[in-house]
């Protein structure tokens, strides 16, 4: 009797420890997802225009799931310490619901990250950057977002196009239909700028002389933060869920051993 008593005590201790970890991870998940949702790199308009901004939806779910995990871990600690069968049953069922939501968030983040290819951003840039005749209000909003974001990206990161300035040469674009090819082989934001924001040498930029125009593409700068965002939500959530799985199994076993 004493031996099994010790075993159960150890299980109790482990479950309390497991719940403490879940609580802390919940808070960390909330904080991480709030950071991602705040969009520190200003890339959200690009995603919004692709109509594929589900990695943000995954982050929003992550905020609420993290908070729920924290609250439920406290409930779990109380239920294990007492021990109270009803409380533990409530804990297990609510945890399973939270588990399902977090699972949805992880899978959404991982799946939609796979959609964010260079071609997607290229097509959107060509079709929306500096387009002058919006179809409707929604289109106008997206055009403004894409144009502002690309201008800021090209200026601040000294890059041009998705793969390079040749993107503007190889494909027809909304920009090209308004600005002829001889004057604007690529947008003037691709030129190396001086301190006042005007090109250092416009003719050199138009000729494509290295040093007077930005010859590298912006894709790395776009995909870097988005990858961090998506993998952060997906894999951290996955780690939490693996840990939660063990704690829940232990709680179920504990529940079956507790008398009313």
């Amino acid at each position, binding site marked *: *009797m004493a031996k*099994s*008593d010790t075993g*159960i005590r150890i299980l109790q201790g482990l479950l309390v420890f497991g719940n403490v970890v879940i609580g802390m991870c919940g808070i960390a998940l909330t904080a991480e997802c709030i950071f991602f949702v705040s969009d520190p790199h200003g890339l959200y308009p690009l995603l919004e225009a692709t109509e594929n901004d589900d990695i943000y939806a995954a982050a929003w779910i992550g905020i609420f799931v993290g908070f729920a995990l924290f609250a439920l871990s406290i409930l779990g600690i109380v239920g294990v310490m007492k*021990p109270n069968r009803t409380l533990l049953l409530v804990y*297990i*069922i609510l945890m*399973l619901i939270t*588990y*399902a939501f977090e*699972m949805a968030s*992880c*899978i959404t983040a*991982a*799946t939609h*990250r*796979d*959609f964010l*290819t260079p*071609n*997607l951003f*290229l*097509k959107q840039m*060509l*079709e929306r950057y500096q387009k002058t005749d919006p179809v409707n209000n929604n289109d106008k909003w997206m055009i403004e977002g894409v144009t502002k974001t690309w201008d800021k990206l090209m200026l601040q990161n000294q890059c041009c196009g998705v793969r390079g*300035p*040749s993107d503007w*040469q*190889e*494909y*027809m*674009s909304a920009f*090209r239909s308004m600005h*002829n*090819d*001889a*004057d604007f*082989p690529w947008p003037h934001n691709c030129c190396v700028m001086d301190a006042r924001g005007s090109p250092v040498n416009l003719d050199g930029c*138009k*000729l*494509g*002389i*290295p040093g007077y*125009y930005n*010859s590298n593409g912006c894709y790395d700068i776009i995909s870097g933060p988005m990858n961090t965002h998506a993998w952060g939500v*997906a*894999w951290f959530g*996955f780690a939490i*869920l*693996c840990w939660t*799985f063990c704690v*829940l*199994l232990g709680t*179920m076993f504990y*529940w*079956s*051993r*507790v*008398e*009313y």
Partner: protein
Amino acid sequence: PHSRPRHPGTRTMLPLLLLLLATAHGLDKVQYTPSLASPTLGAQTTASTFVLEQPRCVFTKVQDNTVIWLVVATPEAVANFNNSVGPGAPERNFQRFPTRVPAYMTLNTTILNYPCPKPPGEITVLRVGSETSCLGDDKRPTCNGPLPSPGPYRVKFLALAGSEPVAETNWSKPITLRTVRQSSSITTMDSGRSAGMIALTSILSILFAILLAGLVAMLVFCGSDACGGSSTFSKPEAVTVQRYNTHHVYDQPAARL
């Protein structure tokens, strides 16, 4: 018999005369082929412009007041190209190129603008197609306007003294400009599923299924009372202290006897 009186120098004089005649109508063919500028330039060829190397140290034997013109022609016009037709003529009008005229002349500059030798490290190029303002202006037939189609085109340099051609280079190889594709031809849906995403989805689904199975088993088998028999864990009972009435507390009255 009448011997033909021959002046002793006639033999040499005839070829000399012929040579003199040739140089008088004098088109000096310079062995230089115009070429595109270095490929390190990002805009070496665009959809409507291209960049040529300047003809430095090419026209070495011309006078200082010679004007060097660039001739741009369709490949079909190369065979019977007439050098004597001047730049302002209707057959050399940029605005009508290439549908109605086979060639045009532009980028005229004196030979002094192509000094020899070329300073090292300087980029000396000619951009064909950079003047957009005179694109539709018929009064500017020598406009260096953007080319209307991807080509191909062949170019050469022609040196004119006044209106007389004095030197020319070879015709270049055919230059083809870039053809733009429509942005709708870009495929965005061909991305496969990454291995990480498949692993994540499958593992999470399996774990969730195990948890649900565990929940069902837990409720079905151990629903109403604790499982496991003797190894159940019972709540530590609240210890209550019962008050025992010890016999010596009460004095039994003699009445009970």
